[in-house]
């Protein structure tokens, strides 16, 4: 355990913790997106999927606990690294000229905050139903379709999904570098993998609020 503490005490170890926890969250998002788009096939299928998940009972709580744990590790590491970085440059530059860094890279921190805010809203919206205009426990497909009829809700979802896409893209590309996988023969593949996964996952998520805004949901 001492060795894990020693890792966490360095900026490299915190970054490795972010990479590892981020990968697990990426895995969750892939499965979450894949199940969400069932709403296009048949809203009842989404209900069935949710029922199947809830059938795991205690195990579902283990999975939720695990996700929450890794989310908190991710957020804590991000917070501490931000503090260290701010302290490292107390006086900024008068002229700023970014040469190569992407917009996605430079918005990782505020993008992350937006995702956290979204997450709280999202769980109150679709899981507990607290913020849902007409929540029917168990009727997941119906809740999604009706929840998305509220224009500002669908718009907020759409904006957040774009920002998650940016976070996701830099995160996936970056995870290889952090874990020590940088090789000239593979570097363009890293970008391809990040772009493909981003289009798939963020695009899949985005399709739902966009379809709602265009009046295309069943």
């Amino acid at each position, binding site marked *: 355990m001492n060795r894990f503490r020693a890792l966490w005490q360095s900026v490299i170890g915190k970054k490795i913790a972010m990479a590892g926890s981020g990968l697990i969250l990426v895995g969750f998002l892939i499965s979450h997106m894949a199940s969400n788009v069932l709403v296009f096939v048949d809203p009842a299928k989404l209900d069935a999927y949710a029922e199947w998940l809830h059938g795991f009972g205690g195990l579902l709580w283990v999975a939720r606990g695990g996700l929450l744990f890794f989310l908190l590790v991710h957020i804590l590491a991000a917070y501490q690294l931000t503090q*260290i970085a701010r302290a490292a440059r107390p006086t900024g530059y008068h002229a700023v000229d970014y*040469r190569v860094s992407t917009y996605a890279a430079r918005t990782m921190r505020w993008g992350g905050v937006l995702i956290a805010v979204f997450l709280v809203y999202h769980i109150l919206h679709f899981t507990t139903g607290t913020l849902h205009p007409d929540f029917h426990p168990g009727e997941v497909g119906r809740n999604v379709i009706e929840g998305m009829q509220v224009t500002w809700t669908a718009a907020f979802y759409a904006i957040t999904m774009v920002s998650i896409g940016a976070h996701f893209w830099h995160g996936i590309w970056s995870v290889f570098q952090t874990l*020590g996988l940088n090789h000239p023969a593979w570097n363009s593949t890293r970008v391809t993998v990040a772009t493909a996964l981003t289009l798939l996952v963020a695009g899949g998520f985005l399709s739902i609020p966009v379809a709602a805004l265009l009046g295309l949901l069943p």
Partner: protein
Amino acid sequence: MSDMKLTLKVWRQAGPSAPGAFKSYPASANEHMSFLEMLDVVNEDLQEQGEEPIAFDHDCREGICGSCSLVINGSPHGPKGGVTTCQLHMRSFKNGDEIVIEPWRAKSFPVLRDLVVDRSPLDRIIAAGGFISVPTGAPPDGNAIPVAKEDSDRAMDAAACIGCGACVAACPNASAMLFTSAKVVHLSLMPQGQPERNRRVLAMVNAMDEEGFGGCTNYGECQAACPKEISVENIALMNREFLRATLHDRDGAPRVAGTM
């Protein structure tokens, strides 16, 4: 030889704890002058007028010592890329340009005067790396120790680092990861660097953290600013070295240094 008129906006600061401010100076130059020669002329004028010349670091003026260190219009070592400030020529600028000149900015690099900063934290990171075990005595036979060409090439590329600190200056996190990784990797890839490999990376990363540099967000600005074009591939290698050493090293030097 076309002459150009420029306006310099220069950070002036009388001492480490004095408040600083930008001051504007007119400058003239021709396209064949180096950036530092352009500043030399400005300084001659200032001295004639009885004013304090602008302090900046320089030594070899041929891109090998790593002394020169100016952030020019927001870019360490200027807009060209792959050169030090002393190798930057005025043909990279146009008549009428305003040029903002600032010191390296990092908590670990306090300003000593004007554009001169204290870069001794980088020396301390190197010192933390310690020695390598090389038997002395009669010179060994050439090629007695086989080294893959690919490894020696990569080690040489990393060893091209002149320790100027442009990577720290360019990084939005003021991180010294590119510098430290170049120093770690140029030894870890070579057979001569193996005996102390684990403890070297542990000690150097520890020193880097203690000096108060930030971490890496994979912006890539360091590599773009580096006059020796050191690759961020070295950072990935250092991450791997550090992870391996922390988990494997038999002495396992647990750290207590970090504050978080």
